[in-house]
């Protein structure tokens, strides 16, 4: 191990990865929404919304996030680009 490694410089600190991974896994644990359940939820949301508007289902993103103590389910649903004129 060289000097820079020993003082935690010049490479990614594994403690930082630990903290990030923990924060992510705890968001799922605390909400009871596992990544698998979230995937199911995403499919159902795509189905529901597609009945009303044309969306780019490949571009849909559903994520759990945390801001301070508030957990949020954030959905980003791109619409299919269309002409300005209504069909």
């Amino acid at each position: 191990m060289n000097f820079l490694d020993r003082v935690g410089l010049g490479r990614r600190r594994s403690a930082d990865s630990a903290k990030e991974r923990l924060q992510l896994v705890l968001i799922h644990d605390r909400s009871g929404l596992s990544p698998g359940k979230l995937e199911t939820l995403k499919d159902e949301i795509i189905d529901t919304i597609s009945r009303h508007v044309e969306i780019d289902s490949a571009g849909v993103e559903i994520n759990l996030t945390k801001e301070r103590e508030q957990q949020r389910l954030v959905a980003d649903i791109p619409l299919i680009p269309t002409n300005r004129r209504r069909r």
Partner: protein
Amino acid sequence: MSAQIVTVTSGKGGVGKTTATANLGAALAELGNRVVCLDADIGLRNLDVVMGLENRIVYDFVDVVEGRCKLRQALIRDKRMENLFLIPAAQTRDKTAVSPQDMVRLSKELQKEFDWVLIDSPAGIERGFRNAIAPADMVVIITNPEVSAVRDADRIIGLIEAEEKGPAKLILNRVKPEMVRRGDMLGTEDILDVLAIQLIGIVPEDEQVTVATNQGVPVVLNSGSRAGKAFKNIARRLLGEEIPFENLDGRDGFFGKITRLMKAGG
């Protein structure tokens, strides 16, 4: 006398529940309190060997629950301290031999005779854990600076809150200051940031804990042990004293580093 009932739990196994219970018991007793440590890990008893009392067991906790003996007959007095006692777990039974109601009833009985009742919880979140927290006035969660242990601690914090036994307090055990310093171990601040819980102690990794456990002597009785000192400080905090936390993160600024270098050099 009305004892404070404290349950030591963790979720994950092997993080130091039994060591913490034995040492907090010994430290509180050394400070003049009448203490009983209750091993709630039915079927996997260990508090007896950590306290060095394994050869003195006649009756166990399940014998009391099932009426084969009086509560005071199951109390084993410590070899060194006359105001420290153990109630051992049964070794040949399982967690279903005891109910949360049994725990509450017998803890209330103990409460009359002691200043502190310390309950060593089994790992896990099932019946044994439920039993252990049922009579608690305060829950102390112990964790290590590792992803798996911290994750389990978070789950336990949630369960404690749901049972309205919170807010729980945290002991961070087996910290390696050198690893924290070079960024290869979660530090105290990282863990408190993630768990949002009140800290009651930080215990450094210390080979003396293994030595003490080998001999069945609490490490708090070894005045040269850093872990022993940390457990003593936790006992004092339980008693309401305000004691600053040990700095094991190595983030003690320029002067701390200089002092350390000078000590190492001198």
